[in-house]
Each structure stands twice: as C-alpha cells, then as structure tokens.
C-alpha cells in the first residue's frame, strides 16, 4: 500500500467534528479580538503611519487562498509542530494582557497563525503558507524608540535634497536642519513627512513581490530599489508641497493636498515595485 493511500485512509478515519473547529475559532477570536481591533486602529490611524498594513493583510489573504487551492486535493492532516508556535504565542499574549503594550500581543497573534495552520492543516499544506503568514510581521507598528533615528535621517535627506533641487530650479530657499524657508513660508520637514511610512511599505511590498517573482535578477533589483525609490518619491512629494507653498502660501498645507500627497507616494512607489518584480512573460513554444 502506498504512503499516500495510508495517509488518506488514516485521515478519513478521523471523525468529522466541525463544532470543534467553530469552538476553536470562537475562542481564538475572543482571545485576540482586542489585539485585532488595536492593529486595525493603528493601520487606519493616518497615511503617515502603517498605512500599508491593510493592503499587505489583504494581499496575504489572497496569497493564502491561492496556496490553499493548490493543495485542496491533499488528505486531511495535522501536525503537532504547531504547538511549538502556538504555546509561546499564547504565553506572550497572556504576559501582554498585564503589560498592555499591545505590540507583544500583536506579535503573538502573528506567531499563533502558523501554529494553527500546522495543527489544523498539516505540514504539507502549511509549508507554502509560511512565507505569506510570516510577512504579516511586516505590518506591525514599529515602536518609536527604534524608528526615531531613522525618521531623523530621512528628514535630513529630504530637507537637503529639496533645498538642492529648489536651488537648481532657481527658487530662493534657505535650509537649516530640517527647516526650509521659501518666499511664502517656513516649513519643517516633520516625522510625518520623513517618508518612513512609504519606506516601510515599499520594503514590505518588495519582499512579497520578490518572493513570488521567478526571475532572480528581478528579485535582486526589486529588493535593491525599494528603499531608494521610496526616498526619492518622498523627496518629490516634499518638493511639490514646497512649490505649492511658494505659489499659494502656507494655507495649502491645511488642505487635503497635504494628505493626498502622502497617499500619492504609495500610489507611485508600490506600482513601480510591482512592475519591476512582475514575472517575465514565458516565451511561446515553437508549436504555438
């Protein structure tokens, strides 16, 4: 008897108990419900912070669905390896209920998912799901203590670059630190304008795109280009805002143009990454 037949007969002998699945799902939702709400709030707080969270999560759901379809013919299976993920995750979550850091609980949530996949879907089905599941970690809000210096470096890069570009364009400008002074106003390149959120989103999308790209060259290019692309797009955005201020005055920053310009950085950078990282077209066979 082949191994496959053995596995199939073993799996089919397991009694169907869908109510147990519903029980586990309900308990999981109860345990991680508040964490999910917190994550959603952080993802939707503003375009300046973790705006890519929802996009990446939807992408991960799409990828998971595709991977599960590919393995739908496999027999039902389960692997106790999942407890190696699930138990530490639940301990971490329990610890966080007292600490209220939320981030620890969010890490626990993303660590628990591969654990549940191993336990309820088995190893064969879970292995192709691991990369999409672990890429969810790239949606976590990064604590300010880790990002403060990056924010500052990005602000300085944006300020110096825009000052240089303005001088090239013969627009009078005085730059000091992270402040730009033009004829109709003085602007501070604040943390929100540092472009960090675009950088974080671009790197996340680049990693996902590279993983699903079959061309090694494209993979390398997409990973190398993500960070500089995000920085350049943000410089262009700050430049545009400065020119708008120079033409129309500081009030323009109180309009939706300010926030839309933030969205625009995602709308420019992410499609470029998708385009570069797309799978090359297969050459048609001689028969066709």
């Amino acid at each position: 008897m082949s191994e496959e037949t053995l596995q199939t007969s073993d799996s089919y002998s397991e009694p169907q108990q869908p109510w147990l699945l519903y029980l586990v799902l309900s308990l999981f939702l109860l345990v991680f419900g508040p964490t999910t709400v917190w994550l959603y709030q952080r993802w939707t707080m503003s375009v300046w912070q973790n705006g890519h969270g929802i996009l990446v999560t939807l992408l991960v759901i799409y990828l998971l669905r595709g991977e599960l379809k590919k393995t739908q013919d496999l027999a039902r299976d389960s692997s106790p390896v999942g407890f190696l993920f699930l138990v530490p995750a639940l301990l971490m979550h329990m610890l966080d209920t007292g600490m209220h850091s939320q981030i620890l609980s969010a890490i626990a949530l993303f660590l628990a998912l591969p654990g549940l996949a191993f336990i309820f879907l088995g190893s064969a089905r879970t292995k192709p799901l691991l990369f999409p599941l672990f890429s969810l970690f790239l949606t976590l809000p990064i604590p300010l203590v880790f990002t403060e210096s990056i924010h500052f470096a990005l602000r300085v890069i944006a300020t110096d670059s825009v000052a240089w570009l303005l001088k090239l364009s013969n627009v009078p400008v005085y730059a000091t630190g992270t402040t730009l002074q033009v004829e109709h106003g003085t602007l501070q390149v604040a943390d929100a304008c540092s472009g960090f959120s675009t950088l974080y989103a671009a790197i996340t999308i680049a990693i996902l795109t590279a993983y699903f790209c079959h061309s090694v060259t494209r993979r390398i290019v997409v990973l190398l280009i993500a960070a500089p692309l995000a920085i350049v797009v943000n410089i262009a955005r700050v430049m545009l805002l400065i020119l708008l201020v120079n033409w129309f005055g500081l009030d323009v920053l109180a309009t939706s143009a300010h926030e839309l310009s933030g969205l625009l950085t995602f709308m420019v950078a992410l499609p470029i990454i998708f385009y570069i990282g797309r799978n090359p077209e297969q050459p048609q066979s001689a028969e066709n």
Partner: protein
Amino acid sequence: MFSTRYAIPVALLLTVTLVPSLIHNYFGLTVTDGKTTNRISNRLSDFESKPSSRNPEWGEVTFDCYDWFERIYKDKQGNSVRLFVGRSFDHKKLYHHPELALSYGNDLARAEKIDFSLPPEITVYLLRANGKRGMAAYALLYEDEFIANPILHQINNSLNLLVSPRKPLTLFYVSDDNEKSQALFAETTMAHILRQAIDDFTSSSNI
C-alpha cells in the same frame, strides 16, 4: 480540509489564555488602595501652589490617569517647581519616558538613577537639560515600593496579573526650568518638594 485531531488541546490552551484576557481586556478589573493625589497639600513648606494650565482631560488622555494633578509650587523668592502626580492602571504609559509628555520641547537627557539616603528610600530618575538650565526628576510608586527597574517590575507584575486585577502605579514628576543642570539633586528645591509630596501621599490612610 481541516483536521480536528488536536482541536481539544488547542481549545483548552485558548481557554486558559482567555482568563487573563477576560480579566484585563474585557472586564478591565482593577483594585484601588484608597490613596489619592488630593492628599498632597497645596502648600509644601514655604511653597504655595496653583494648578497649571493643563486641560482637565490631559492627564487621562496622556497617561490614562484616573487621578492626577499638575501644580506650580512657588515660594516668596520666586523659585518655582512644577509637580505632577498621577495614578494609572496602565503602568507603561506612566513609566515609559514621562518627560516626553511632561517636559515637551525640552532637550532632557537621562542622567542617573539615584536613591535618597533618608528612609523611605526613594529611587529617583534624574534628567538634566542639554546645554542650558533645567532639570527634572521622577519617582514611581507601586503598592508601597518605589520602582527601581520599570521593565522588570512590568514583567513581574504581568505574571502576578494573570488571574488578579490591576493595581495603580503612581508617578511623581518634578521639574524646574531654572535649576542649574549640573546641580546636586538632593540640594535642589525640586528634591525638597518631591520628598514632601511623597510623604503627604504615602501618609494618606488606606480605606
């Protein structure tokens, strides 16, 4: 597609995890010790106080405090010290760089952690301004002990909180923008106000 082979142990693990989640995330169970910041006198030694200009909601929004005040204590010579005292069940909000909220805009660097020599021993976190006058200091009180290591305290406390309600942490924060940044803390007016405020607070009776 889904196997239910391990569903029962998983359900049991999730049920155990749900206990602290219910206590803290859903029911938000807390217990108070009956102490209140109101016990700290408006007059400490020769210093009379008046409330600062913060909005009434500020302490709740910033530190999740259910009981707080911020007062400016002044003596006849014009020396002035700002004192914030707040109590919150969300410990991290209180101990995680309170100077960012309470001394916003001041470039303060963590200088040292010192212990007052006289009993009760108080661990004070000292912050000194960079390149100009200004000093701030704070102490954290939980139950009847001053916290020397907030992170360790938080981890230990979290383990205790698995099946018990939260207890409040109290933050005492003093600042003086005119104090020489290199002054010896124990000899400053701030230290005097901080000590007296803590004495007032800790002497308040439990209900």
